[in-house]
């Protein structure tokens, strides 16, 4: 239980509807744990959840948009990693 945060508590603190969290789960963007019919967020997911919340609140991006953004950010991150790997490999021939 130490690493779990109640989804309700999170929603109260951030003044958002619980449906926002449920939608993120439905879209496969976060993972939730249900214990005795209560939804919990793993503390490791909090940072990601807060980022998704900012996309929603500050940029007015809807759930479909958030899903696309998350996908593209992941793709971008993978490409950055690949660039670093290739640069390191290229240094072999310089």
């Amino acid at each position: 239980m130490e690493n779990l945060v109640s989804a309700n508590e999170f929603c109260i603190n951030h003044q958002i509807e619980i449906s926002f969290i449920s939608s993120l789960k439905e879209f496969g963007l976060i993972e939730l744990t249900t214990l005795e019919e209560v939804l919990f967020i793993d503390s490791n997911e909090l940072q990601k959840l807060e980022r998704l919340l900012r996309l929603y609140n500050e940029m007015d991006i809807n759930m479909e948009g958030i899903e696309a953004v998350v996908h593209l950010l992941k793709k971008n991150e993978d490409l950055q990693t690949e660039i670093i790997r290739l640069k390191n490999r290229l240094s072999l021939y310089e």
Partner: protein
Amino acid sequence: MEFIDYYKILGLAKNATAEDIKKAYRKLARKHHPDLNPNDKEANKIFQQINEANEVLSDPENRKKYDKYGKEWKHGEEYEKAQKAQSQQGNYAGRNYQEGANEEDFSQFFSSMFGGGNGSRGGRQTKFRGQDFNAELQLNLTDAFKTHQQTLAVNGKNIRITIPAGVENGQTIKISGHGSPGANGGPNGDLYISFSITNNSKFKREGNNLYATIDLDLYQAVLGGEITIDTLDSKVKLKVNPETQQGTKVKLKGKGFPIYKQEAQFGDLYITYSIKIPTNLTDKQKELFTELSKS
């Protein structure tokens, strides 16, 4: 400290409506928001300006004050101070930027005019996680070869971190809790350190393997023998087979780079032989080579 034209930052005219401001902010935020531009310092800087402009123009009181004094804001500030001194009232506080911002997120201009990034907008006391910090640490390849500790100065605080052997150039590690302090009792952000590794050795590195080219004289290449070569941290003796050809590669298992976070595990060292043809031959040597060529 220069005057900042918040309308210009948001691309708006002075008579923009609250809805125009909101739209302009959202549009620019979608382009420059740090969450959409990770590790992009320029985008982060632009977003801070956009955010600051929105903080001022989206708040009717702030906007009024900003519009009233405009470029003369310095005098406006003096005027405000005089007013405060007279009545001990009308203190401009009451703002609370909720998204974990601190005074460093605002320009000097903003802080002078509006007193920093603290106050209350709506009076919520939400806990927010602090911002993450990003830093770059330069290491030599020989430093990355061994697990070692380094002291870093992050926002005025010295922190001692252990750098595991085998870190890669461009790799980022997370130091939990060493980012910006959380707001209203929220957890601290994290510190992300990216390594920039300079090769100060004769070896080339790819992943956990090391590569080097070793000169071999013609006689050793033809007749074989034993040579001593340097690895990154020691020396090893290597048997050279007779009739070794130019470009022959030899693998020295486990003599490469340490594997990140895998105790006592190492990559391999690949040696390529480069055979050197003797120069400035004496007449006698030329004669012997001629004889050889006929045999």
